[in-house]
């Protein structure tokens, strides 16, 4: 071509070397141990930080250039989507409840990831690792902001999007994602990297961003599709980094292996539990379905994760613990989670429903081993009861798992009719768990997990009412007091989709968009 650009002065590898090496120094006024106080206590031994390599060899100049392009694309689409009243083009207004969950449960985690990588980068003496953490920290705040911007458009029209920050620290089910990230950012820098960089980013985020976001596209939600893919384009870099972290740490010293293995076991299980929410979103909340949770799990975890752990076997790493249980659970968890939210819809900031007949058929087809036997009859029974005017909203608070904070809704591996309970006596108290995984994680660090802020315990202790509320007053209604504390309006933000303000408004606005009357 006649527009040939001149040859670059430095190749990619050389440029990366120059931009990430030799920029640090050994401190002399203060000891290195005082400057980097957290880098040794976890027991990880690093002998040569220069062995750290980013396979994409990204430096800041290229980073800004490509990120700026991604932002321009994203905001062009977001503007067009808003100007075109794109929200009225989603398949069906039930869909909007899935993105309420996204904004409330996932976007704040992006912000925590931003903080986590900033803190972790500060703790690493190696420049290459610091640069990588810096970029990821910037990516993560970009994700939080683009998600908030994109979803703010829905907040103009629909309920449940307001005050997501207030709700994150209060609403019962949001303690699940929140405590997951709080657990990670309060760990040491290497554990954080394995937890978020490797276990979450590499092993699990594909499940969130790829099939779910493709599903958003399928359901006419261009806004979510755009921020989702834009975020995931950074994720590709994060995943690669997550894998490099593991390889780097394992190559540095053989003593690191058992520590890293324990973190991989812990964080794969912790992340897997959090993703229950995503499974439910895919199977129940996308009116037009793209793939089932089970299928997504098989492609993105079993196939990819299988290849990954086969590759890591040369370092002595084995696949994460409790995979046999996870394998059995994939037929069940999304159904168990939706049943729970259907039960507790009075205390939620989104609406629930019983799937339509063709949706039930889809679930029967996707889950031949479990759905017709265990879950369909129950949903149909609830539907019949609701028709008769007996819609039952559970107001009794459930027991929570001390580790993952999910109510005890999961069943025994191999027996879907029996709820799984585990318990541990520690000091003067008894602690309860949903699984062997969560129990073992607790037993490894009991002093950390006994501090958990469990929403149910807090409600019973009287800590989840607005100031001045008297729980001993006559006619005191605890649910209504808790909803006030959450800033949720009874009958507007919660309960079933059928009959909701969202449903009525969407129907009316869509009518206005297609007719002249």
């Amino acid at each position, binding site marked *: *071509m006649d*527009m*040939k*650009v001149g040859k*670059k002065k430095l*190749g*990619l*590898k050389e440029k990366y070397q120059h931009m990430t090496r030799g920029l640090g120094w050994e401190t002399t006024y203060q000891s290195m141990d005082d400057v980097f106080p957290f880098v040794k206590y976890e027991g990880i031994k690093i002998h040569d930080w220069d062995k750290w390599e980013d*396979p*994409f*060899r*990204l430096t800041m100049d*290229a980073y800004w250039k*490509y990120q700026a*392009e*991604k932002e321009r*694309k994203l905001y062009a689409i977001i503007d067009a989507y808003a100007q075109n009243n794109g929200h009225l083009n989603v398949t069906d207004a039930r869909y909007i409840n899935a993105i309420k969950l996204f904004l409330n449960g996932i976007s704040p985690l992006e912000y925590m990831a931003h903080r986590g990588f900033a803190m972790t980068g500060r703790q690493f003496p190696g420049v290459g690792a610091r640069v990588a953490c810096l970029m990821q920290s910037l990516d993560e705040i970009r994700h939080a902001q683009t998600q908030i911007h994109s979803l703010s458009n829905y907040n103009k029209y629909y309920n449940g999007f307001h005050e997501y920050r207030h709700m994150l620290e209060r609403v019962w089910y949001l303690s699940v994602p929140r405590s997951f990230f709080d657990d990670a950012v309060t760990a040491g820098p290497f554990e954080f990297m394995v937890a978020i960089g490797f276990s979450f980013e590499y092993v699990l985020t*594909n499940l969130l*961003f*790829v099939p779910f*976001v*493709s*599903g958003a*596209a*399928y359901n006419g939600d261009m806004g979510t*599709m755009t921020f989702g*893919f834009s975020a*995931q*384009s950074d*994720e*590709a*870099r994060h*995943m*690669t980094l997550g*894998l490099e972290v593991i390889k780097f740490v394992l190559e540095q010293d053989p003593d690191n292996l058992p520590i890293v293995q324990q973190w991989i076991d812990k964080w794969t299980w912790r992340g897997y539990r959090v993703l229950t929410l995503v499974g439910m979103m895919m199977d129940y909340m996308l009116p037009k379905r*793209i793939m089932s949770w089970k299928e997504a799990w098989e492609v993105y975890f079993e*196939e*990819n994760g*299988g*290849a*990954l752990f*086969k*590759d890591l*076997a*040369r370092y002595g790493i084995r696949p994460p613990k409790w995979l046999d249980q996870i394998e059995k659970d994939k037929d069940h968890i999304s159904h168990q989670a939706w049943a729970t939210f259907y039960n507790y819809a009075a205390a939620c900031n989104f609406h629930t429903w019983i799937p339509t007949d063709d949706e039930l058929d889809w679930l029967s087809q996707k889950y031949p081993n479990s759905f017709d036997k265990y879950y369909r009859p129950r949903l149909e029974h609830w539907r019949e009861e609701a028709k008769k005017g007996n819609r039952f909203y559970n107001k009794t608070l459930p027991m929570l798992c001390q580790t993952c904070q999910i109510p005890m809704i999961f069943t025994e591996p191999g027996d879907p009719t029996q709820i799984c309970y585990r318990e541990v006596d520690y000091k003067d108290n008894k602690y309860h768990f949903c699984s062997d995984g969560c129990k073992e994680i607790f037993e490894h660090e009991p002093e950390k997990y006994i501090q958990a802020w469990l929403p149910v315990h807090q409600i019973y202790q009287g800590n989840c009412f607005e100031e001045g509320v008297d729980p001993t007053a006559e006619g005191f209604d605890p649910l209504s007091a808790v909803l006030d504390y959450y800033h949720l309006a009874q009958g507007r933000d919660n309960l079933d989709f059928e009959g909701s303000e969202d449903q009525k408004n969407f129907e009316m606005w869509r009518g206005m968009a297609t007719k002249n009357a």
Partner: protein
Amino acid sequence: MSKVFIALQTNDDTRQIIQAILADNPHAVCNEQPAMVKIDAEGSLVVRRSTIEELIGRDFDLQELHINLISLTGNVDETDDELTLSWNA
């Protein structure tokens, strides 16, 4: 042998990139999904700058891939000329 994959957004920028990847990796399988394309390949997959440049008729910096990349797996090795994804086992 394990599979690697690369997933790209479906748009005008990626059409020729996808074509180039499929041309350079005859063993690769292309899965079209809503708004995205996932290319799976046994063992390894290579994205070659020169093939993309031939198809788009201009210079291409492999790092431009980041703009439309959705996800990938495998060990990554990137140079000025090639991006390779592979598993060692």
